[in-house]
C-alpha cells in the first residue's frame, strides 16, 4: 500500500514497442559482425600479399625456376566470380520484401555458381606448375590460393544451408536479413578471389 502523502509524478516514457524487429542493410547487427569478420580476413589476405612482395624483393628471379601458373582455369574462375555477383545482388534486393520464391531461386543459382567456382578451383590447384614444398614462392602462392579456397568453400556451404532454410517456412524475419548479408560475404569472396587471381596469375608474370 503506497503512502498516502506520496505525490504522483509525471514520467515521460519512450515506447519502443512499435519498432521493427528485423533490420536490413547496415542497421542490422549481423551485418556489422560480417563487416568486422571481413576486416579480419581481409587483414589476413593483406598480410599474405605483403609476405609475397616481401619475399619477392629478397629474390633475384621470380618465379624461381618455374613456369607461372597456367592462366586458363584462373580466367574461367574470374569470369564465374564476376557473373555470380548478379544472383547475389538479386537475393539481396528481394530479401526485404520477404519474397520467399525469389530468394529460394536466387540462392539456388548462387549455390550453383559457388559450386562451379569450387570445381574450377580444384583444377586451378593442379595447374599451378609448382608444388608447395618446392620453395618460398611456391609456398606463398599455394597458401594464397588455399586461404581463398577456404573462404570459397565456407561460403558455398553457407549458401547451401540458407537455400535449405529457404525451402522451409523458416525463411522469414531475421533469416531474410541473413540471406541478404550472405550476399555481402559473397562479394568479399569475389573481390578477394579477383585480387588473389591477380597475385597468382598477374604478378608472377608482370613483376
Amino acid at each position, binding site marked *: 500500500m503506497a503512502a498516502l502523502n506520496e505525490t504522483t509524478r509525471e514520467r515521460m516514457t519512450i515506447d519502443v514497442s*512499435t519498432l521493427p524487429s528485423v*533490420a536490413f542493410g547496415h542497421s542490422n547487427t549481423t551485418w556489422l559482425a560480417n563487416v568486422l569478420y571481413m576486416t579480419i580476413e581481409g587483414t589476413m589476405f593483406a598480410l599474405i600479399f605483403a609476405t609475397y612482395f616481401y619475399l619477392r624483393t629478397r629474390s633475384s628471379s621470380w618465379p624461381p625456376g618455374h613456369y607461372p601458373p597456367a592462366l586458363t582455369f584462373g580466367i574461367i574462375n574470374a569470369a564465374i566470380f564476376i557473373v555470380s555477383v548478379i544472383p547475389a545482388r538479386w537475393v539481396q534486393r528481394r530479401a526485404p520484401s520477404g519474397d520467399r520464391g525469389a530468394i529460394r531461386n536466387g540462392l539456388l543459382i548462387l549455390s550453383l555458381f559457388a559450386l562451379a567456382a569450387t570445381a574450377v578451383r580444384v583444377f586451378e590447384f593442379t595447374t599451378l606448375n609448382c608444388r608447395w614444398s618446392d620453395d618460398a614462392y611456391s609456398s606463398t602462392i599455394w597458401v594464397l590460393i588455399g586461404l581463398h579456397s577456404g573462404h570459397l568453400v565456407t561460403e558455398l556451404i553457407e549458401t547451401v544451408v540458407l537455400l535449405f532454410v529457404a525451402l522451409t517456412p523458416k525463411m522469414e524475419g531475421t533469416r531474410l536479413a541473413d540471406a541478404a548479408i550472405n550476399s555481402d560475404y559473397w562479394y568479399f569472396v569475389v573481390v578477394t578471389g579477383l585480387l588473389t587471381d591477380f597475385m597468382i596469375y598477374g604478378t608472377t608474370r608482370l613483376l
Partner: protein
Amino acid sequence: MAVTEPVVANERDVADAELARRLDRTWRQPKGFWGWFSNTHHTAIGLRFMVTAFVFFLLGGILAAMIRMQLIRPENSLMGPDLYNQVFTMHGATMIFLFAVPMMFQGFGVYVVPLMCGARNIAFPRLNAFSYYIYVGGALCLWGGLLTNTGPDVGWFAYVPLSGPQYSPGHRTDIWAQMITFTEVSALGVAVCIATTILRHRAPGMTLNRMPILLWEKLVLSFMVIFAMPSVMVASSLLLLDRLVGTHFFNHSEGGDVLLYQHLFWFFGHPEVYIIFLPGAAIISTLVPAFTRRRILGHTPIVLSVVATGFIGFGVWVHHMFATGLPQLSESFFTAASLMIVIPTAVQFFFWVATMWNGRIWLRLPMLWCFGFFFVFLIGGLSGVMLASVPLDTQVHDTYFIVAHFHYVLIGGALFPMFAGIYFWFPKMVGRMADETLGKWHFWLFFIGFNMTFFTMHFLGLRGMTRRVYTYLPEMHWGPLSALATAGVVFMTAGILVFLVNILRSMRMGKIAGDNPWGDFSLEWATSSPPPSYNFVHIPMVNGRNPLWDGPIDQPLIVGLRDDIRETLVTHSLDTEPQHKDEDPGPSIWPFLTALTVSAAFIGSIFTPWAVPIGAPPVVVTLIGWLWPRGHSPAPLPGRESWQH
C-alpha cells in the same frame, strides 16, 4: 514514437515489480550440468573468463617461481636446460595468451561492457560463449603439452629458425602454434561481440560524446585485436605449414626469410602489449572519479589519447628488432614513433594527477591499487623511453633490463589495475564487499615483493645478464642480485595467497554491498548487485557523461520491450536513437559443441594434415546446428514488418 503518458509513482513500482518477475522468468539462466554449458549470458561468461584467466595467472606464477629458484645461485641444478626452456616459454605464453588478454580484454570486457552500455546482454551471446570454450581448448592444448613433456621450448615468440622443422623436431612448437590459433579465434570472437555491443546496444542518450572512457577503450581495443591478431595467426600458421607440410616461408636456403617471421610476429606483438595495457589505463580513468568524487578532467583528451595509442601502437613494431642490423633510416623512424607513443600516455597521466589534485581522495582498496599502478607503471614507461633509442637498446636488448622493463609495464600497467578493478567490481559481481584489511596486506606484500624482484633486474641487465639462460657462471657475479630477485617471490606469493583468502572469504561473509557501494556514476551501478539475468528492469536513459551523477531521477522511461521473449534494443551508433529490436537467442548448447569439434580439428591437425578434411565435417554439422532457425517463432507483432505482406 515518444508518447507522454503520466504514470503514477506507486502504480509504477507495482508495475515494475511485476515486470521484473516476468523478465526474470524469460531471461532465466539455465541450471544443471548441461545448463551450465548452455548459458550465454554475458555475466556468466565474463566471470568464467576471469576465473579461468586467474587460474592460469597462478599457474604462470608457479612457473615464474621455478625460474627464480633455478636462478637463485650460479650453476644451480634444480632444472636442466630442456625443462628450463619449456618452463620459461610456458611462463611467457601462459601469462600473455592465457591470462593477460583473457582477463583484461575478454573477462572484464564481457562482464562490464553490456552493463555499462545499459544493455540486457552482450551482442552475439553464442559467439561470446563459443569464444570462452575455444579459449579453454587452447589452454588445455598448451598445458597438456607441458604435462606430457611436449611443452614448447623456443620462447613465447618462437623465432625461426630455432622453432622451425630443422631445429625443433617433435610437436612442441606445433602445440605452441596451434594454441595461438585457439586464443586468437577466441579474442577475435569477443572483439566482434564487444564492438557490436558498444556501437549498437548503447542505452538511448549515451551518444558518443557521453560514452564512458572504458567503453571507448574497449572499442579501440576491439579494433586493435581485429587488426593485430591476424598477423600472429599468419605467423604461426606459416610456421606450422613449414613444420608440418614442408613449405619454405622461413627457410632462407629456398627463398624464404628469417626476418619475415619477426615482422609478422611483432606487427602483432607490439599492439598486443597495448591490448594488455590500455584496459589497465581505462580502469584507472574509471576508478579515479569515483575515489576522488569528481568528474574526470580531460575526458575528451583522454579518449583521444586512447585512440591515438591504438593507432600509433601499430607503427612501432620494429623497435623489437633493433639488434638485427636494419638500415639506420628506418630504425630512426621507429625510434621517433616509439617516443611519440609516450605522449598520449603522458597526457593521461597528467589528467589523472589534475583530477586528483583538486579532489578528495577516498583511499579505499581500489584506489590504493591505482596508486600502485602510478608508482610502478611509471618506472616501466620511463625505462621504455630508454629502449626507444637504438644505441641504448643495442646494449640492453635481450638482457634482464628488458625483463625488468616489461614486467614493470605489464604488472604495473595491467596487474595492478586488474586488482583495482577486481576490488572495485567484486561488490557488483558478488553482492558483497571484499575485506579492506586483508586487501591492504595483499597490496603491500605484493608491492614490496614485486619491486624486490624486478627492480633488481634492471641492474642485472646493466651488468650484462642475458635473458633465457638456465644458469650462469659464478665469475659473472650475478649471484647476489639474482638471489635478491628470487627473494621477492616469497612476498608476492604471500600477497596472492592473502588475496585468494580475501576473495573466497568475502564471497560468503563480506558486507552486503547494495546497488552502488562506491557512489559511482556509471550504469552498471544502476542495477542490483549481482545484476539480475536481464540486467535492468527498464533500459536506462542517459543524460550525461556521468549518468548516475548527471541524470535527473525522473528521466524518461524506456518502455515497450517485450518481456515474454528475450527482446533487446538496438540503437543508432552515434546518437543512440532507438532503431529496431533484436531477439537474444537464449541458452544454447551449440557454442560448446562447436568448440569441441573445432578443438578436435585444431589439435588433430598438429599430428596429421588429414585432421583438416576429417575434422571439418563435424565442425560444419555443429555450426549448422548453431545457426539453424529455432523451432518457435515470436508471437505476431502489433505492427506490420516490412517483409510481411
